[in-house]
């Protein structure tokens, strides 16, 4: 078997970065997720990054209609979808135009020559054939369209329908080039199109033909990043792939079981939060009922109503929708009802970049409300991490009778990774107690340990009481305008939330420790990029540690000490420096900030570079 040896290097000898790019209608997301499945089943570690346009189906051939799916996979630990591409599939000129800059020199470029015609050059904004300028890449110019048509013709499939199978032909080819199997894809096709035998057979034929093409044409294979039988050095156990949305929704249903109460998810569709609504709507049997509300305000209000009535209300949205919920969130804070609010962050301000990722709702989560209105803020760091974080959100909300904001983002929502399937029986239950001793029950009396009040839903015999958003007397809950009471209640609300820090594990390190010179303190979905960068830096002998915040508010009790013990602390984030400002604000110290707001995740290289600059400074 030939190997394109110069490929080895950039992405490391034991991982490959592949991006499938084409028109929105070309099925690139499907292609990518099928490829992911095959790599996973082969035992690779991997990380994916789907990237699609805001338009449902933008005009064919335009740059803004390009849809892409990137995966990094291999036999080593893979933390990110990869900085630079080893392989770019560009099914039309527009896809080439948008994605070429990410292909590393010497990388493999696969194009469908049938699409490289004048009409499409114009649509993509090229004034000439872009192939004229493609130097320095390993080129595979293939008439994929014609070859697919030829492959399905024997089945009696016409050209138009044949074109729908182009992506599977391409997938077959790439599977061959990368040495992956294609059995799972075949199974999937058989099941998915069981009712449409012709489509099924055409797809199978296309997949096989693409695969066979690689072999027949004696194309050089890409370097082997995962030998047959080899698996990535992941902790042992049974794995599946999950996206952040999968893991988060599983976390919620698991939390329903662990807490012993049902969850109620109220939401209004918005990208990239809608997929949580879709998935939870299918999980109703497992203790999370869903309700599509008339708007985001109603969505949080039904959730608050459900919490008041004894289920745990959960609501989810993205930035603009979360903004609309803030007034009602204040009611949940004031009445001290448990609630989980999930913010799947996206590019902003305003409608912004709905399908692109960003971490710019941290201020909104921690501080974005009228008055002093403290709550808990958590952030998930990887797709799989959404699972424990969702459980933690429910645990804290019910234990402390408080709203909890859970931050994910467009990247986490859609990206996938191998996930060690948790043993649910081994998770610690946290049964929720409702009602209170009838004797002298007072709605705002507090548990001295947690400062939480009792959760007494209507319907509880004998504990009738009334609550509301006007300041409440600190025991009876009756309206009180008393100045001292307001001060006391404000202090209670603050102390209750800050006191949760005592209930949190001490902040630890992902890599390195207190003895290092530099700390990279991350939060949220930058995890993988930081981890990769730190791996490389440490391998280069740089004294850099990595800590990653799950608890954004309250901050871990030992964080101040950690920050104080490093020469430099770098806070990378996909916004203009929000955690950075918050930390400086809380600890009154100076930290370094690394920001990026382009709708794309950090590359590991960007972080590495910055650390190196810091070291030189």
């Amino acid at each position, binding site marked *: 078997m030939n190997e394109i040896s110069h490929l080895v290097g950039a992405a490391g000898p034991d991982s490959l970065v592949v991006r499938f790019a084409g028109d929105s209608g070309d099925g690139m997301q499907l292609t990518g997720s099928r490829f992911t499945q095959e790599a996973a089943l082969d035992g690779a570690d991997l990380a994916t990054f789907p990237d699609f346009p805001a338009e449902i189906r933008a005009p064919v051939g335009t740059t803004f209609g390009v849809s892409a799916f990137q995966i990094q996979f291999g036999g080593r630990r893979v933390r990110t979808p990869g900085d630079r591409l080893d392989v770019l599939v560009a099914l039309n000129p527009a896809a080439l135009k948008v994605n070429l800059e990410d292909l590393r020199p010497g990388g493999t470029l696969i194009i469908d020559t049938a699409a490289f015609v004048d009409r499409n050059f114009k649509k993509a904004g090229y004034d000439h054939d872009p192939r004229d300028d493609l130097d320095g890449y390993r080129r595979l110019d293939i008439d994929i369209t014609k070859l697919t048509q030829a492959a399905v013709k024997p089945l009696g499939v016409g050209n138009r329908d044949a074109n729908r199978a182009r992506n599977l032909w391409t997938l077959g080819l790439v599977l061959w080039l990368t040495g992956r199997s294609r059995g799972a894809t075949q199974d999937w096709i058989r099941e998915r199109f069981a009712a449409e035998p012709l489509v099924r057979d055409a797809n199978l034929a296309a997949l096989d033909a693409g695969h066979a093409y690689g072999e027949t044409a004696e194309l050089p294979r890409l370097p082997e990043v995962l030998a047959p039988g080899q698996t990535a050095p992941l902790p042992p156990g*049974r794995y*599946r792939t999950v996206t952040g949305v999968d893991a988060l929704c599983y976390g919620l249903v698991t939390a329903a079981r662990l807490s012993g109460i049902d969850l109620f998810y109220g939401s209004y569709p918005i990208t990239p939060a809608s997929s949580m609504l879709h998935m939870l709507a299918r999980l109703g*049997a497992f203790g999370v009922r869903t309700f599509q509300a*008339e708007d985001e305000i109603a969505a949080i*209000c039904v959730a608050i109503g459900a919490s008041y009535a004894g289920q745990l209300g959960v609501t989810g949205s993205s930035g603009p929708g979360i903004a609309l919920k803030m007034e009602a969130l204040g009611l949940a804070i004031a009445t001290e009802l448990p609630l989980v609010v999930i913010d799947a962050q996206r590019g902003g301000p305003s409608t912004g970049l709905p399908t692109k990722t960003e971490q710019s709702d941290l201020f909104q989560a921690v501080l974005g409300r009228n008055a002093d209105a403290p709550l808990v803020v958590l952030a998930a760091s990887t797709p799989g991490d959404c699972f424990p974080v969702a459980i933690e959100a429910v645990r804290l909300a019910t234990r402390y009778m408080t709203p909890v904001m859970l931050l994910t983002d467009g990247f986490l929502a859609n990206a996938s990774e191998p996930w060690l399937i948790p043993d649910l029986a081994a998770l610690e239950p946290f049964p929720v107690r409702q009602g209170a001793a009838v004797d002298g029950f007072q709605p705002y009396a507090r548990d001295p340990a947690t400062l939480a009040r009792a959760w007494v839903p*209507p319907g509880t015999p004998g*504990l009738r009481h009334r609550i*509301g*958003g006007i300041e409440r007397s600190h025991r009876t809950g009756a309206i009180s305008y008393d100045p001292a009471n307001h001060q006391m209640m404000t202090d209670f609300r603050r102390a209750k939330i800050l006191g949760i820090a005592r209930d949190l594990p001490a902040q630890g390190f992902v890599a390195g420790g207190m003895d290092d010179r530099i700390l990279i303190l991350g939060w949220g979905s930058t995890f993988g990029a930081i981890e990769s960068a730190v791996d490389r830096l440490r391998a280069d002998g740089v004294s850099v540690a990595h800590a990653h915040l799950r608890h954004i508010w309250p901050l871990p009790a030992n964080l101040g000490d950690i920050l104080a013990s490093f020469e430099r602390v770098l806070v990378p984030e996909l916004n203009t420096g929000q955690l950075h400002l918050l930390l400086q604000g809380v600890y009154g110290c100076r930290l370094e900030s690394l920001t990026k707001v382009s709708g794309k995740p950090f590359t590991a290289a960007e972080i590495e570079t910055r650390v190196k600059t810091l070291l030189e400074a």
Partner: protein
Amino acid sequence: MATVLEREPKGLTPKDWASDQEVRWCPGCGDYAILKAVQKTLADLQADPDRTVFISGIGCAARFPYYVESYGFHTIHGRAAAIATGVKLANPELDIWVVSGDGDSLSIGGNHLLHLLRRNVDLVYLLFNNEVYGLTKGQASPTSPRGTVSPSSPGGTLDAPVNAGAFALGAGARFVARVADVVQGPMVEVLTRAHGHRGTSFVEILQNCIVYNDGAFDAVTDKATAAEHQLWCRHGEPLLFAGGTKGVRLVPERFALEIFDVGADGLGAEAALVHDETNPMLAQMLVRLDVPTALGVIFAVEAPSYDAAFSAAAPTRKPGLADLQRQVGGRTTWKIG
């Protein structure tokens, strides 16, 4: 709203339905009379205070929950309908009363009221219409007549008011009734009907704000003019008023209602339309009548309630841990190590 009482009726009196909180409305406010009628209705119904919940937005009217000896939630401006929806879906056993003002319901809360009515969530919705913003000191509300002079409209309002009943019908309401604060007996009757109806029972209550809009409904409620202004709609009974001296009949050519004097033009009492509360077009015409003002149950039809459908859609079998583990584990898996 019909909740089957599982426990024994408690023999509670209206007084037992009064909470220990001091009522804080202005002396003479129409809200007092409504509170009294609601408390009497609850006592008459032998409702269970532990399973009764009053939910309100913000406004003078919205202070109501504090005064009823049941569960109560005084929420935020305009959102009571949405919050009540969540409460009902989370616990369909609860007997829910929403109390709201004309501003709360028809200004900031208009969207939630629309969707509540369309969904037909099983609860009673009381809209205290005083045609003014009471709590914020007297600005014109969406039900204030055009030309209303108020602190925010010193030159008079420019907009046509919302007709609460017409809006409710347009939104798909299946139960629309109207009463006035002072008509205690009939109010209890209407509230009892509303409580018995499955789905959202929308009741507009004409309420006098003695401080900012005193006398807005004088023509309807004053002894001297009441007979001429109150048209009581009772299913199956002729639409007669003014002590039976006047009636309402249909003019088919104009698809409109017409008032006639009984006895004049050879029209007897039998010329009056017989009220049919199930007829949507009749309801449309009745809610829009000005003089006389239609009171009573104007429209009432059966329809599936959202909460019932929601409960019915709930999975019957609660899956066990193994099912959940299977679900979380997914279908395509592999082993490492």
